[in-house]
């Protein structure tokens, strides 16, 4: 608008740090920025790629005001007294799962037996695999778990070094569709309710919540609007993201956006809403599996307080 120049000075500068490279998990933020929703709230938002720096420390230390994170890492972070708080679930249900090429015939956790899993070497992975396998009385010790480092899914499975890996369907799965690679998915949510955690989430630090609750509210209002737009107009939203990040593969963004649009809100009454039981369940599960040193105070870990009033 014409009043841009004058108002720009008064805008509050806000930094949002992503979890990784820009992708369709972040569409709402880009929409809110580029359609001016943030500006309407008086915020001048800069979106930053953290590279390898990782978002959580930056958010926790206040170098960034908001960030994209995951329930898993916030849970671990809280236990280590890192003052980071989840303020919205970007996607209501866990869309991650174990993917494998169709010819491997891995359609349920039972089939993991005798196969090779490629991961990044975290204890969490074994616990999750074991957990889903238990549901079918399968034996986790028959799975060969290797660390595949930074290799990407397609490379690793095509080479037959590994048989299955843990992916987000919304990105890697959609890419598989695009390149006509047939894959089987074993979703975590199908086998364990406790593993239906929020991934990814938007997060901020305790300091912001305490001292600038209004800013947080404003931010959340605009972000909600942005995600709502993406839910309603996936094609347009995808275009906004592509325009903002022209180096992304346009086809993949569009397809992924299409797939993800209905998943943002899903069965919740409002985008972003988080349930305490989801946080508690997952933390409990982690604690049971020796993945946490102490129990999580779930109430501290997330809040719905900044979500806009439902219309």
């Amino acid at each position, binding site marked *: 608008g014409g009043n841009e120049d004058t108002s720009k000075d008064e805008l509050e500068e806000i*930094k949002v740090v992503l979890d990784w490279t*820009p*992708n369709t998990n972040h569409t709402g933020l880009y929409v809110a920025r580029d359609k001016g929703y943030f500006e309407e709230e008086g915020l001048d938002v800069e979106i930053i*790629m953290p590279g390898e720096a990782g978002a959580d420390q930056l958010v926790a230390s206040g170098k960034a005001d908001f960030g994209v994170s995951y329930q898993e890492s916030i849970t671990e972070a809280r236990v280590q007294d890192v003052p980071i708080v989840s303020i919205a679930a970007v996607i209501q249900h866990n869309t991650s799962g174990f993917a494998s090429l169709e010819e491997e015939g891995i359609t349920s956790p039972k089939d993991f037996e005798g196969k090779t899993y490629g991961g990044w070497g975290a204890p969490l992975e074994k616990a999750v695999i074991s957990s889903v396998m238990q549901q079918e009385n399968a034996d986790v010790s028959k799975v060969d778990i290797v660390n595949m480092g930074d290799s990407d899914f397609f490379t690793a499975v095509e080479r037959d070094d590994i048989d299955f890996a843990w992916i987000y369907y919304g990105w890697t799965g959609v890419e598989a569709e695009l390149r006509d690679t047939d894959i089987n998915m074993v979703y975590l949510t199908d086998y364990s309710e406790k593993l239906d955690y929020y991934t990814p989430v938007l997060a901020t630090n305790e300091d912001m919540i305490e001292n600038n609750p209004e800013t947080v509210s404003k931010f959340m209002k605009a972000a909600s609007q942005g995600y709502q737009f993406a839910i309603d107009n996936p094609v347009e939203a995808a275009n906004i993201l592509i325009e903002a990040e022209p*180096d*992304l*593969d346009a086809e993949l963004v569009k397809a992924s956006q299409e797939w993800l649009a209905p998943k943002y809100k899903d069965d919740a009454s409002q985008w972003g809403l988080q349930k305490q039981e989801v946080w508690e369940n997952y933390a409990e599960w982690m604690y049971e599996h020796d993945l946490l040193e102490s129990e999580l105070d779930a109430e501290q870990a997330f809040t719905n307080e900044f979500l806009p009033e439902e219309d």
Partner: protein
Amino acid sequence: MRKLLKQGWRPILVLILLFIIWELSVIVFEIQKWLLPAPSEIFKIGVAEWPNYYGHVLATSKLIIIGFIIGSSIGIIVAVALHLVKFLRLSMYPLIILSQNIPIIILAPLLVVWFGFGMFPKILVITLVCFFPIAISLLGGFQQTDRDLMHYMKMAGANKKQIFWKLEWPSALPYLFSGLKISATYSVMGAVISEWLGASKGLGVYMTLASSSFRPDRVFVAIFIIVAISLLFFLFIMWLEKVVIRWHSSEKRDSNETS
């Protein structure tokens, strides 16, 4: 210049040969495009999308140049300080080695937490990468100063500063250039890595984006550009060496003329 061209055809030939082998093996082994694209394709993409790269190349080049200048200056200063001040030499070595062993990945969040997202932490990363080979090479060079010349300087009453500027520095120049060549090469890599600290433009950013959207062809275009920049930079340092070290102290330079 003519000489450069005359000698330049060989590396170019080798590169072209390499590309042909690559291209052929992609065709013969039917390597899929998303796994390892053929050079012809990379080239096509590179030409077609050049305007996209332009800004990234500029951003990264700026980082490289600033970083290299600062990094090599610090390398030189460190070497000189350690050389001249015995106390420093004896006490600082571990810190220098330490500086090379903190993984950037681990350092990255700390750097950003301390210095924000600006230019500074990035330059710091390049500096950390660049200064080390220069410092070590130059220190090695200072220790190899010719004894007869040193005797003369001392006898003539040269003070530490004069000994340094008139003897040790010029005689360590070949070592300095060894270090500069290594650092010039690393500075390019360092710049790319430093962009992981969070940048909005640059080949490092571009490459991660391309990689995460499963576009190895674009990744390779970026790699080619990076290598090209490195090569240019390396050649520049070699040229500088030729200009600076004119005194033919060694057989090699001389033998060009006589044999």
